């Protein structure tokens, strides 16, 4: 409810702002109005960029080009008289241009993201950088479509005319040109508000959770059927669409666009806006947009620049002094550095007489400063600052208050799809070779449905490799794996997970920055059917799904005994609880087969008892389990069958007691020379 009151206030502010500007600076001053319009347009783009840069952590250096594509979509329509622009139908035209700009930019975004995001690392940054240049060239070259370097002139339509109000409200006694600007201002602000709501909804939805999850642990995301690749592409396309939307508005606000409007430096500006304002927030990008739009003016006026430098120095000294008092003595020097830099910056500003010559350096230094000392942006910095005085500030954001119940733990039972021979999973002669190393050497593994199948063996015997082969992280060099009557060799992790194989990880792979319940809800991603549009429009079905997922997640947390910790950040859990959470998250996938990789490692004795009970219950609900474990008591007490691996080969298989007595197994465990009986 808090959110809505903020929205109402925001709306009021936005509605009144142009009137204020006009009142203060006089009706002959469209300068500040234009500045606010450009800030609004840039904000739309930067909010979109934040989805890629802030949420998924990928760097795009092509947003200026996407912005240009949006602008040129509008421009070309006008240029070829497909849209009239400026006439009576201007309002409809501009709306059509906005829609088309969005779509075309999204299409280009997809074209770019589909190949570039296959690879992790700086590839997206490199490809988008190249893309930026090429788009510049294409716009320049395709004279027939874009009018080439000569640019396109558009006319801002009169969207609505309120000058008749001038009789009652003198503020509206303005010229027609200014009225156009005021009307256009409202259009931009309405679009910006729409964007904020849209981004808010996406980020709060299962998509938003997926974006954050894939950044924390890409492998775990893939194994939760949340394809890292697909969601990164999706995030990029959404982001590109918003860039296109902003571009189409920009074409109308500037009324003249040319290829060199959309430069590499602009892209850097956008990234600076996100970082400087503060990532993963709505205020941050808007703040960033304000800064980059006013930057040329700031750097153009020496006096103003000195004033700003002084202000920064004062803030730095104040917060630095405060931090000095509070900080660890070890960190004191580290804190001093940025404060001194700010002071030096102020001193420098007093000395230079010609600011234009050093503009780029100042710009570069700003970026460096933000990267080093404000990695969470101004918003993050302020949040931290306020949190110093108001304990707990900003921590209650993600609180989800639902209670689960036993009825919602399990998905409605479905009869599992088995292989022709009645097995749950059938591994035949699998070989996994890394260079000269055979981690798995022709291993067979036949797991019967509704059983707990233990997989044991000394360190390095190939157990974890087997897990990775089964979940598609490695593609085996030989052999076949049958699951649900089909081969899963060569299938990608998210697809295998989607077919019903869930897993936990030996070295815990939680989504650290998400809360405990959100971790489970990422596992429930597959239960959502609503698309982006449904989320954006907040369809009843979307809300229902979300509510169902919450209840389900809370129920699962109850089952693994973590309900009380539901709103903790996962990374703050004790180690043992992390392992339990991984099991809960895996159960959310409604798996037919659950792979547990050393679930008892690091657990205390009472925890282990609890774990055994949980695994038993999982089996009772018809889920087949493969269990890798070193705690022999666990293995011996709950497994129906045990397979022993040693140096990549299967050396024994059978009932736990039989396997335990097998001399080869004892030898494998105790080493070559100690095969004599124990007692």
């Amino acid at each position, binding site marked *: 409810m808090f959110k809505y009151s903020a929205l109402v206030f925001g709306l009021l502010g936005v509605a009144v702002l142009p009137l204020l500007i006009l009142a203060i600076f006089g009706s002959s001053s469209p300068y500040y109005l234009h500045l606010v319009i450009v800030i609004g347009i840039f904000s739309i783009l930067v909010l979109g960029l934040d989805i890629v840069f802030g949420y998924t952590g990928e760097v795009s250096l092509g947003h200026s080009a996407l912005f240009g594509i949006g602008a040129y979509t509008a421009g070309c329509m006008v240029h070829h008289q497909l849209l009239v622009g400026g006439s009576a139908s201007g309002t409809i035209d501009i709306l059509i241009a906005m829609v088309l700009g969005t779509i075309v930019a999204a299409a280009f975004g997809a074209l770019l993201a589909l190949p570039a995001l296959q690879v992790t690392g700086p590839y997206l940054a490199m490809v988008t950088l190249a893309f930026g240049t090429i788009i510049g060239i294409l716009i320049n070259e395709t004279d027939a479509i874009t009018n080439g370097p000569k640019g396109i002139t558009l006319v801002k339509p009169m969207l609505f005319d309120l000058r008749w109000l001038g009789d009652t409200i003198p503020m509206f006694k303005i010229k027609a040109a200014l009225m156009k600007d005021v009307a256009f201002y409202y259009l931009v602000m309405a679009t910006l508000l729409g964007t904020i709501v849209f981004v808010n909804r996406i980020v709060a939805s299962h998509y938003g959770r997926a974006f954050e999850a894939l950044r924390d642990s890409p492998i775990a995301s893939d194994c939760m059927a949340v394809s890292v690749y697909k969601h990164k592409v999706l995030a990029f396309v959404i982001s590109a669409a918003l860039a296109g939307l902003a571009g189409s508005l920009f074409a109308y606000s500037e009324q003249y666009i040319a290829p060199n409007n959309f430069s590499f430096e602009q892209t850097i500006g956008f990234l600076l806006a996100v970082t400087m304002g503060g990532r993963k927030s709505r205020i941050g990008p808007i703040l960033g947009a304000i800064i980059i739009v006013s930057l040329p003016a700031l750097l153009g006026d020496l006096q103003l620049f000195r004033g700003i430098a002084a202000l920064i120095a004062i803030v730095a000294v104040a917060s630095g002094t405060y931090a000095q008092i509070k900080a660890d003595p070890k960190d004191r020097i580290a804190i001093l550095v940025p404060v001194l830099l700010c002071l030096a910056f102020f001193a420098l500003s007093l000395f230079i007489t010609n600011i234009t010559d050093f503009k780029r350096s100042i710009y570069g230094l700003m970026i460096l400063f933000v990267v080093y000392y404000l990695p969470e942006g101004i918003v993050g910095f302020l949040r931290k600052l306020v949190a110093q005085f108001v304990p707990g500030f900003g921590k209650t954001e993600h609180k989800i208050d639902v209670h689960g119940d036993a009825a919602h733990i399990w998905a409605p039972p479905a009869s599992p799809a088995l292989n022709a021979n009645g097995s749950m999973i059938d591994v035949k002669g699998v070989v996994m070779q890394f*260079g*000269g*190393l*055979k*981690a798995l050497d022709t291993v067979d593994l036949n797991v019967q449905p509704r059983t707990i199948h233990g997989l044991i063996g*000394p*360190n*390095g*015997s*190939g157990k974890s490799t087997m897990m990775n082969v089964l979940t598609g992280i490695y593609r085996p060099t030989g052999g076949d794996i049958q699951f649900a009557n089909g081969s899963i060799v060569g299938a990608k992790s998210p697809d295998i997970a989607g077919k019903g194989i869930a897993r936990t990880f030996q070295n815990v792979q939680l989504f650290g920055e998400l809360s405990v319940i959100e971790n489970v809800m990422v596992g429930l991603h597959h239960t959502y059917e609503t698309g982006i549009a449904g989320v954006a429009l907040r369809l009843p079905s979307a809300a229902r799904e979300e509510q169902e997922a919450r209840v389900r997640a809370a129920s699962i947390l109850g089952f693994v005994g973590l309900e009380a910790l539901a709103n903790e950040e996962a*990374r*703050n859990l004790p*180690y043992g609880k992390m392992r339990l959470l991984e099991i809960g998250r895996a159960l959310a996938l409604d798996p037919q087969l659950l792979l547990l990789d*050393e679930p008892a*490692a*690091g657990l205390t004795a009472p925890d282990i008892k609890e774990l055994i009970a949980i695994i038993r219950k999982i089996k009772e609900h018809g889920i087949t389990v493969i269990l890798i474990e*070193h*705690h*022999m*008591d666990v*293995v*011996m*007490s709950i497994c129906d069958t045990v397979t022993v691996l*040693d*140096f*990549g080969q299967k050396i024994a298989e059978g009932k736990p007691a039989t396997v*335990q007595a097998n001399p080869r197994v*004892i*030898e*494998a*465990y*105790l*080493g*070559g*020379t*100690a095969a004599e009986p*124990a007692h």
Partner: protein
Amino acid sequence: MLQVENLVAGYGKVQVLQGISLNVPDGQLVTLIGSNGAGKTTTLRALTGMIRPESGRVLLGGKDIAGMPAFAITKFGVAHSPEGRRVFPTLSVADNLELGAYTRLTGQRPKGDVKGDIDKMFDLFSRLGERRNQLAGTLSGGEQQMLAMARALMLQPQVLLLDEPSMGLSPRLVEEVFSIIGRLKKEKVTMLLVEQFAAAALEVADYGYVMENGKLTVHGPADKLKKDAAVRAAYLGAAH
């Protein structure tokens, strides 16, 4: 030679080692055994600076090396054959060995006869001699393990830390690895051996420590530990 006092270490929030103390006397082979996840590898990683210990002291010949970065600790003569071998797959066998003597070749440790030592390694590990110019990534698991050990020996270390040299090897190769460890022992190389194969380790060691959940529970001369029922139980389960 190597003395550990009250070492506390872990990863991020997870504290794995909860204050361990052990002693590796000069010229002796000491083994650290225990079940998986007990903290054996973490101990070695903390000793050689691959993770930064939270507290405690690591004395090498009386000098505290705790908290130094790994490359600096190596300079003092602590060689570490890490878990999972970690040979440099894109370099040849001979180059891997040469890198083992990096500190000697760059004047941080007495140089001696590096070429001669490489040849000695090829004598000691005859399988490697046949493959001196092959890329290490193409070796089999056992060969890689031997290369990792030989590479560590190239430091001419004060103390050699061996982390699970038997991991992933066939019994025949495990036997070979242990016979080499036996030979090194005869040459009075000071060693700390972390091993999951308790019996095999205790067979060659002079002294043993048993680790459980980040703590050292039992220790004593190797022959005594061999007969300790508690040790066996820790491995094959109490049910046995």
